[in-house]
């Protein structure tokens, strides 16, 4: 481990991705779940940029740039849904949202 290799970045990325996933699975606050999804997107970016760095290509960086843009777009719509729902239900607890089932 004397030199910096892609393995470092990929490990970091995997760790971030899985922490984000755990957050989605465990947390009950919709906003926190939303933040965890952003965390997962970010982890993917780390992978992309790590691969780009390793392969001397800019494709990965470009891809990451677009992911950031898309994440912003998703954030806008997602927060819109969350706000509208919290207005009706007066809660952001995901476990309270289960009228549709079976």
């Amino acid at each position, binding site marked *: 481990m004397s030199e910096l290799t892609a393995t470092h970045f990929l490990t970091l990325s995997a760790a971030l991705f899985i922490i984000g996933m755990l957050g989605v*699975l465990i947390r009950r606050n919709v906003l926190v*779940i939303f933040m965890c999804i952003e965390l997962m997107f970010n982890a993917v970016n780390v992978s992309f940029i790590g691969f780009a760095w390793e392969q001397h290509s800019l494709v990965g960086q470009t891809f990451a740039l677009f992911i950031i843009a898309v994440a912003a777009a998703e954030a806008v719509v997602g927060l819109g849904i969350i706000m509208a729902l919290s207005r009706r239900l007066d809660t952001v607890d995901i*476990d309270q*949202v*289960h*009228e549709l089932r079976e």
Partner: protein
Amino acid sequence: MANWIFLIPLAPLIAAVVNFIFGRWYLRDRAHWLAILGVAISFGVSVAVVAQVARDEVALSQHLYTWIPAGDFQVPVTLTVDQLTAVMLLVVTGVSLLVHIYSVGYMHGDPGFYRFFAYLPLFVFSMLMLVLANNYLLLFVFWEAVGLCSYLLIGFWYRRRSAAQAAKKAFVVNRVGDFGFGLGVMLIFVHLGTLEYTGVFAQVGALPQGTITAIALLLFTGAIGKSAQIPLFVWLPDAMEGPTPVSALIHAATMVTAGIFMVARSWPIFAASPDAMLVVAIIGAATAFVAATIGLTQYDIKKVVAYSTVSQLGYMAFALGSGAWVAAIFHLTTHAFFKALLFLGAGSVIHAMHDEQDMRRMGGLKRHLPLTYWTFLIGSAANAGIFPLAGFWSKDEVIVGAWVGGRPIVAIVGLVAALFTSLYMFRVVFLTFHGPERFDAHTVHPHESPPVMAVPLLILSVGAVFAGFLGVPPERGVFHRFLEPVFSGHGAEVHHVSTATTLTFGLISTAVALAGLGLAYAAYVRGAIKPAVVAARLGPLYQLAYRRWYFDEIYEALIVHPLYRLSVWLWRVVDIGIIDGAVNGVAGLVNFTAQRWRRVQTGLVANYALAIALGTVIIVGVYLIVGSTLFQ
């Protein structure tokens, strides 16, 4: 012109679809414009196409697309116009156009106006596709489609119980025939591996005699149903429950002739089987005779014309069975004119009499409805075979065809039936238009039909007068020279008819027709013969004819009733007891599983996400262990 053939069926189809979709809300009582336009386009293109066929003496065809492309079994959808199709095209589109125009007046104010003008072009489309088809499968599909349209139109006034019953009856009886037809088509495919006409006709001679006969008879079963031959003719008189223009178009001029057309189209198959030909001739002759006797005894004006149609279809059938192909198609063509005319005329009478159909409550209408009278008289005379109207030439040719085709008995039966034909036709004329007025003049004020109904009557009566001259001189007329290429080859026999024979039969027919006219005049105008006395004298024979040879009663007793009993029994014992038990068992099991599995769907996002994650981890894990280089 070949590239424009597709327009012939397409124009009425578009009219039907548009009327169906927009009719109820937007078009309503304007629906007829589109329908008439569609059929007119179809007629125009047909004329152009037929002109080219006549000029170049070739069959035109246009390949549209391949319907079922699965492996060896390919069904191309190709529209073909040869001389036979050309004749049918002109008959179908021409009569349709006139009937459409007539209907504008007849159906005026009906709440189902738009529906009528959606069904009618739909029928025209189906009928055109039927005659344009180049293979048996397509023919069969549209054979069913015209049946469906007929069913819809017979039951057009579906709130009337009798109309709904008649529609059902037509449907069921036709189903019997269609079943046989379907079997025949399957048999062709099994033995020859193709359904295209050219391929089938080229190979059919190589089949064993028994197979050919079986195929021919099965195909003819379809014709028996559709063209109302004995023993399946019972639906056609009942079909008169539909609006009169429908009777004229579908149940006289076009659809019922589909069976005749189909047999003529398949002539190489029939020609290869003398036994089948004999059956066709016998059934045809019997139909012609039986229906004519029934026609003598009926009092409903439309029913008489309907039995006359059945009888005339019998003539066409025995012409086919005698190998007189051209004569059959010739009679089909002239019949389309005068029978459509008779129905539309009858419709005009019924219209004028405020929906009265019983001739015993008519009489003396000549004064009130001069135009209807004269056109109806022309139609009747043509149907009766009075020289030189259309029916004379074609009927004469049919009878001569049977005689020289080696079926003298059939020809004689035909002559006897011709006597009856003349008698019942003029009976209708005299009962309806002559004699005293037997209706209540205070409540019924007969009035002549509007021009939109009168014009089609005039055009058709011109056809009824002159159409016969297409076949003059007999055997060498324009009509024959045009059609001959179709019915040659495949070992066709050509009968030469001597001028003496032609002349003899011409004279006999004329004598017979005039005899019928005279009898009718004596009985219904002069009163020299009392019909009631004759009926009483004949006793059981009269009853037989009046009760329509008891066909309906026999079916009721032998088929309908036992079937009903059987179905009730099946329902009680087999369905409830056995099948339901088994099905309920399986259903119960599946339902139990369903109820269990639905619980998985908890409605909680966390659980859903967990399922996704679990799926991912398991799939990736399994693959890494089994499919990767990791542990190798």
